[in-house]
């Protein structure tokens, strides 16, 4: 049991050491000319500190939601693909099932498209 | 379909026809409803001619007449089981008579006539249903069904405080019927049909001790069930502490509805006690008889005293009903032949007399638009015919010889005297007080100086006479020759007494 996981453990330690060495190295060696923009965690994107009630455009949510939904559905393809070949020899049921599933996804996609959820304007 | 079903459901046919008549066509609506309440009267009278007097009824199906019996809700062993015996027939006939007369008396209803007449016919069906049902569930359904038209009739066509009166009436009686429902269910689960061995709602099966479970034969259980059932019926009678809905309902109800309320509905309470409580719990009926007699005496005296204090003519008549129902209770409580026959005859007699009284109040209210006793005076000069009929009704209510009230009250007193001497003597004072307030009222309304306001008041008209004369004639007829009714009631009632003893 322990032996099986030993390489992973060693790998984790090496990785930690490497990360530490690189970060420490840049901290000591690198030149420092700070300005406010450089000190912020990210240089582009959302302000890290500010009012919690900032308003986002609803479009972001729409896209995020659609992404999550379709992304989750796609996950179902993986286990299916793994066993696909073995079962196809018996009957084509497994293929038809997936086609139905894709069909349902397609209806959802058409619905989102037609409702204008994919348009930015 | 037998005669009973035909009589009971004939008014429903009238409702269907009325619903298809335009609400503008008042004459047609009124005529249809009158015709459809007259036909049941004719059928019921025909049934009287074919009534077989020696059959006892009460607890044997074979002793009932015009029986119809078939399954209605087999899952609960509920039957459509109707029949008549000497106890129910007089009330059955009286219902058809008073319904017809009340509908004639409703001629001047001025609002939403279509609904009024339809509901009135529904009321007739449900009342007839109560008197003919021999299945407890069927009885309960009709009993509750009666509430609906009554509630609307008081609430829509009533006086200024009609909402209050209607909802009070509904909630009081609903509370009573709920107790009845519980008793009914308790009986259902503890009574076996002797033939099939299943539970049953058949009242007649419930009356036989051999069908009852062991639980049902224990004294405490029987006492509590009896009391619950008693309260259910007592609210309807109404017996003293449960009576407060009655004056409100009467004062607000239109004339014809008051007639039905006092003439039929009040009798259902005592009818229920005789039909259901007594035969099912004869031992408890005997055990509690003294209490019932006391309730009766309280009703007699309390009703009479309160009636005397009334300023409103209709309220006076309403409380006189409370008083007169006390005689029924007293007669029922003693289990002597004379007493119980007197009680049932009083139910019949009071139905006729109180209907007259309420119709008379209605006549004068239509003319004067108020009912203050003090506001009249000397009307006898301008309304001689009215005064004549009113005197007849008032004397009948006082129990003057030659009229039905006398026979009933004398029978009750004879029957009661041998059992509860002191109570009977106290109750006899009720007669005196009744005479006092009746005479006093007559004096204030008809005698003395004519109130100048009523210089031009018109006498009673033909239609009103048409409603009053049959009742007056019957009061005198049965007062002189009561045998048709007494013969009918005595066989089952004597049998009932032997059951109790």
């Amino acid at each position, binding site marked *: 049991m322990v032996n099986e996981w030993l390489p992973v453990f060693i790998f984790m330690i090496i990785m930690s050491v490497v990360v530490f060495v690189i970060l420490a190295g840049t901290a000591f060696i690198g030149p420092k000319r700070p300005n406010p923009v450089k000190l912020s965690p990210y240089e582009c994107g959302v302000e890290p500190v500010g009012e919690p009630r900032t308003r986002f455009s609803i479009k972001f949510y729409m896209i995020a939601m659609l992404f999550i939904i379709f992304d989750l559905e796609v996950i179902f393809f993986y286990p299916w693909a793994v*066993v696909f070949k*073995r*079962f196809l020899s018996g009957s084509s*049921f*497994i293929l038809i099932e997936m086609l139905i599933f894709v069909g349902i996804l397609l*209806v959802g996609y*058409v*619905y989102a498209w*037609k*409702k204008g959820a994919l348009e930015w304007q | 379909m037998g005669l009973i079903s035909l009589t009971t459901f004939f008014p429903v046919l009238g409702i269907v026809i009325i619903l298809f008549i335009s609400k503008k066509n008042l004459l047609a609506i009124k005529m249809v409803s009158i015709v459809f309440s007259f036909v049941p009267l004719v059928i019921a009278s025909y049934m009287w001619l074919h009534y077989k007097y020696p059959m006892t009824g009460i607890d044997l199906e074979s002793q009932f007449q015009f029986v119809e019996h078939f*399954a*209605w*809700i*087999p*899952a*609960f062993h509920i039957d459509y089981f109707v029949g008549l015996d000497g106890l129910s027939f007089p009330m059955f006939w009286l219902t058809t008579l008073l319904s017809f007369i009340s509908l004639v008396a409703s001629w001047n209803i001025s609002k*939403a006539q279509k609904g009024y007449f339809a509901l009135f016919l529904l009321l007739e069906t449900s009342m007839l249903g109560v008197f003919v049902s021999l299945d407890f569930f069927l009885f*309960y*359904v009709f009993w*509750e*069904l009666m*509430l*609906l038209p009554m*509630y*609307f009739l008081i*609430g*829509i066509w009533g006086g200024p405080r*009609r*909402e209050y009166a*209607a*909802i009070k009436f*509904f*909630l009081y009686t*609903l*509370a009573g019927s*709920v107790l009845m*429902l*519980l008793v009914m*269910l*308790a009986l*259902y*689960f503890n009574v076996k049909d002797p033939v099939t061995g299943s539970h049953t709602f058949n009242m007649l099966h419930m009356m036989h001790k051999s069908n009852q479970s062991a639980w049902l034969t224990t004294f405490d259980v029987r006492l509590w069930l009896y009391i619950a059932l008693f309260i259910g019926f007592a609210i309807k009678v109404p017996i003293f502490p449960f009576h407060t809905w009655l004056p409100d309902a009467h004062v607000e109800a239109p004339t014809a509805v008051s007639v039905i309320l006092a003439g039929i509905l009040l009798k259902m309470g005592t009818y229920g006690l005789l039909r259901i409580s007594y035969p099912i719990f004869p031992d408890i009926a005997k055990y509690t008889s003294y209490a019932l007699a006391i309730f009766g005496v309280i009703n007699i005296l309390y009703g009479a005293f309160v009636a005397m204090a009334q300023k409103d003519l209709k309220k006076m008549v309403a409380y006189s009903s409370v008083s007169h129902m006390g005689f029924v209770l007293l007669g029922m409580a003693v289990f002597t032949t004379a007493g119980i026959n007197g009680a049932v005859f009083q139910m019949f007699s009071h139905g006729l007399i109180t209907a007259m009284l309420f119709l008379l109040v209605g006549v004068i209210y239509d003319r004067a638009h108020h009912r203050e006793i003090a506001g009249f005076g000397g009307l006898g000069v301008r309304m001689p015919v009215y005064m004549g009929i009113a005197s007849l009704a008032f004397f009948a209510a006082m129990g003057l010889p030659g009229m039905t009230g006398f026979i009933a009250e004398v029978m009750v007193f004879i029957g009661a005297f041998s059992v509860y001497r002191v109570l009977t003597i106290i109750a006899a004072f009720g007669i005196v007080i009744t005479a006092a307030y009746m005479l006093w009222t007559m004096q204030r309304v008809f005698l003395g100086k004519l109130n100048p306001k009523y210089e031009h008041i018109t006498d009673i008209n033909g239609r009103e006479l048409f409603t009053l004369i049959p009742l007056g004639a019957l009061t005198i007829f049965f007062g002189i020759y009561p045998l048709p009714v007494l013969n009918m009631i005595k066989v089952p009632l004597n049998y009932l007494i032997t059951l109790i003893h």
Partner: protein
Amino acid sequence: MDLIIPQINFSAIAPALTVMITAVVVLLIGLFFQKVQRELLAIVGIIGLIVSLGELGRMWGKDITGFGGMVGNDNFTIAFQMIFIIAAFLAALLSLNRIEDEYVSYGEFYGLLLFALSGIIVMVQGLNLLIVFLGLEILSISLYILTGFRKMRADSIEAALKYFLLGAFSTGFLLYGIALIYGTTGSFSFKGISSYVNANGFTNVLFVAGIILFLVGLAFKAAFVPFHQWTPDVYQGAPTPIAAFMSVGAKGAAFAVLIRLFVSVAAFSTREWTIAIWVLALLTMTIGNVVAIVQQNIKRMLAYSSIAHAGYILVGVLAGNEMGRSAVLFYLMAYTFMNLGAFGVVSYLGISHKVENLRIESYRGIGYKYPFAALAMAVFMFSLAGVPPTAGFIGKFYLFSAALKAGFVWLVILSVLNAVISAYYYLRVVVAMYMQEPEEGKVFELPAASWGVGLALLLAVLGVLYMGIFPSSLMQLFQKTAELISML
């Protein structure tokens, strides 16, 4: 490791599939033909409902199972499903009301209604907690959206948010309960739970906690006191036909699951559980009735009344005998007619001249102005109050008889008293309609009722009266189904 595809039997879920496919079709029609009449959408939906009723009829008596025993249809569950389909049918007709114009997109409306129904069907069919959960989620999510469908109105949005938050919360309870049950018994199926209880009883604390959490989750959906707080707000804010559907569908589905759980686990008839449900039933009906008395808004009044009715039905569940189960079915059927009818009248009278008529006072005098609607309302009110000769009376009678038969004398007495209390507030509506003068200076003009509303109300009135006067055939049918609960 070898994978075995479980035996899949699509015919076992044919009704649910039919409803779902219809929902998709309705959705797509609404999507591609923006100008289409909503009547057409409703008719397509109704055709789907009729087809699925036919499917259920075909499955009658066959005890079809599928998906490795995860779903099953005995007659008892088929009867439940039929009731819910009828409820959806009436709700679809009611939403044809001209004044409910503000929904904007009817394709989604009818689509979601059908999805909600399919969720209920799945939930009722489930022989497995996961399937039950799946159905419940389909149902709940559809209802969250439908509740907020009048999106221009603040109260609708508020209702949707409230319903969503509390619903999600209760789903958490339910799921946690399922997890604990699975953790202790190692099974999701009712059968597995049953055999676990038979072997071990209720000794394992974690298992008991799981069952309790599961019941709490269901109690939220069925709105038992003290889990009822969301009901009035949600019913008030939701479109009226949806509130009507929720009051029957969501509640009834919870009851179906509850009964299945109680039937499969016989040990629930032990004293502790009985007492708990006894108290729950009494609290539910009493608080529902008492609070309903003071309501001024008719939709809130009906919401509290529906809480009280859940209490009555719980009495039948508690009875635990065949009679109780068939009484629950009968009452649910009766309740479908009377409650959908009552909500239907409310929705018809709902708005006139952009003024809301939801206060009970605003019903004054309509008995003369709108005689048919008022008459129908009176019939529904009397039926809800339990006055003969209506379905409500026979239904209550049936439930209470069953409870008496099982020996719950005091509960029956208290329930009957509750019924009397309830008469007061139902009568208030009747009093307002027939016995009071209209409010001063109030113009009350309605457009003529559309055929859909008229048909729905007519069917509901006929249903209430038929079940009240000739209850026998339906009673016998339900009794047979309750005797033969074959699948656990």
